[in-house]
């Protein structure tokens, strides 16, 4: 740590602070309300997940991926399952693929709902947070009836999914999809286009296209900067190439392309697109196997593989090295939030304290993924 400059006040924001989304610690040096510098210190949630992977077998690691990005467990499960499948060269039945897409997109909606809600409460409006939570409960109920859990699903497994969807799932999902658009409209009227909200976020913490690429920013944050890079479209996996959906891109509706409002709005647009995807998938769903034949003891051939998937927060990548035994030799996780966090010190220079909160909220970082 460099010696503190006497002219500036050093303040610890976190690890216990109402809006650092967990245990992020920012060492902030301020000149009154204006920040000179904000430096993130991470590691308060470190659980050595990558090391644990070397200790457990391939199927045993799936529950640990739940705990990477706990708001989007399905997506983390999916990325890990695809990694191991690529190593093993397993073909996935079509029904399993469709089910995976449905779950991943439902989870994307629920994750974005939390992002929307926690961001709104960071901005001082507490009501949208509870509205977001209310809609998320529907999705949680759907997941609970499918796999029995509300947060750490462990549903998408190597080879397919753990069990077929229960009776009534399709009907309830359609019910939710019919109910949801009205709520998105409500969010927009209540928060997105609120004058105070726009005033707080327009032209704040603009990430230019070049910066976004340089810092490896991915996900909605990258697309808000005007780059239509979505792995579901650019590098299609599962059945995404058969589906019809748009990639929302930041247009600078109320300010500059890539400002905090654009990043926030990407998530609202993506919830709409995800709803469309789920609708199409429900129509495509035909009877079939929900999982491929996978032996109980997995012994992938020696080799290495890197697979990435589009998570709600960006590109989640697994780099897996196998030495031919039942346990991974090395697993490296490329967490999207880690890269997204790295641009915060650059954005935080010269803004006000309230803007720093807006920056953290609009980047939608999640700490367990950063600390692993």
């Amino acid at each position: 740590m460099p010696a503190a400059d006497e002219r500036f006040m050093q303040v610890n924001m976190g690890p216990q602070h109402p809006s650092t989304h967990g245990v992020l610690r920012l060492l902030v040096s301020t000149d009154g309300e204006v920040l000179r510098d904000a430096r993130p210190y991470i590691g308060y949630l470190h659980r050595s997940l990558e090391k644990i992977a070397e200790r457990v077998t391939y199927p045993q690691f799936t529950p640990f991926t739940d705990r990477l990005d706990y708001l989007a467990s399905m997506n983390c499960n999916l990325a890990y399952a695809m990694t191991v499948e690529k190593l093993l060269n397993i073909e996935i039945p079509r029904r399993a693929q469709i089910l995976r897409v449905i779950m991943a997109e439902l989870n994307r909606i629920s994750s974005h709902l939390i992002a929307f809600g926690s961001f709104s409460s960071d901005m001082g409006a507490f009501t949208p947070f509870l509205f977001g939570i209310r809609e998320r409960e529907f999705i949680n109920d759907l997941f609970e009836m499918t796999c029995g859990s509300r947060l750490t699903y462990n549903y998408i497994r190597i080879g397919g999914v753990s069990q077929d969807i229960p009776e009534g799932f399709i009907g309830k999902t359609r019910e939710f999809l019919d109910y949801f658009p009205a709520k998105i409209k409500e969010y927009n009227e209540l928060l997105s286009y609120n004058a105070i909200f726009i005033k707080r976020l327009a032209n704040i913490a603009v990430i230019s296209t070049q910066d976004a690429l340089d810092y490896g920013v991915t996900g909605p944050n990258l697309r808000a900067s005007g780059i239509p890079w979505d792995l579901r479209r650019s590098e299609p996996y599962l059945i995404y190439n058969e589906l019809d959906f748009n990639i929302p891109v930041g247009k600078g509706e109320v300010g500059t392309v890539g400002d905090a409002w654009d990043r926030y709005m990407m998530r609202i647009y993506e919830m709409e697109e995800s709803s469309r995807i789920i609708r199409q998938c429900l129509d495509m769903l035909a009877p079939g196997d929900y999982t491929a034949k996978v032996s109980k003891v997995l012994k992938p051939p020696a080799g290495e593989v890197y697979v990435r998937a589009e998570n709600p927060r960006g590109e989640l990548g697994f780099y897996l090295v196998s030495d031919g035994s039942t346990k991974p030799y090395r697993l490296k996780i490329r967490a999207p939030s880690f890269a997204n966090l790295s641009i915060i010190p650059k954005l935080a220079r010269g803004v006000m304290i309230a803007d720093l909160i807006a920056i953290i909220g609009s980047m939608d970082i999640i700490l367990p993924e950063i600390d692993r």
Partner: protein
Amino acid sequence: MAGYFKKMFTALNSVLTGMGITIKYGVNPKAEVTQQYPEVKREPPDRFRGKLFVNINICTGCTACARICPVDVITLKTVRDENKKLRPVIFDINNARCIYCGLCVEACPVDNCLYFEKKYEFSAYTKEDLISHFGLGEAQSPGKKAEEKTADVTKEQKEAAQ
């Protein structure tokens, strides 16, 4: 100057729109979605992953569950009885460490042997209380008597668990 007033107007307009939405909920008591938890309990779905339960009498002692568990929750000790069958002497499940992933349930080769109960209220005062003991214990005397005794033990445990 026109911009000045236009700004004020749009700001006021958006604020009033938002207030329109909140008052709609404010005056509508039917919009409440809260469930009064201790009085109203929701019925968990069939696949609910609650507390683990072992039907120890049909357990074959294969240790598949203990081997698959990623967090080493299950302590399983087996001995061969006089019929050369594996007998689970100790079968402890540490609920404090369980992550409810369900891998053990799927690994269990016997139907209805290891499964999740629809139970989610089992907090305890000490960590020791969170360990459920399902083991049959050491057989004291071989034959029919032992079997009877073990049946009693499991019955007691089941009652205690409930």
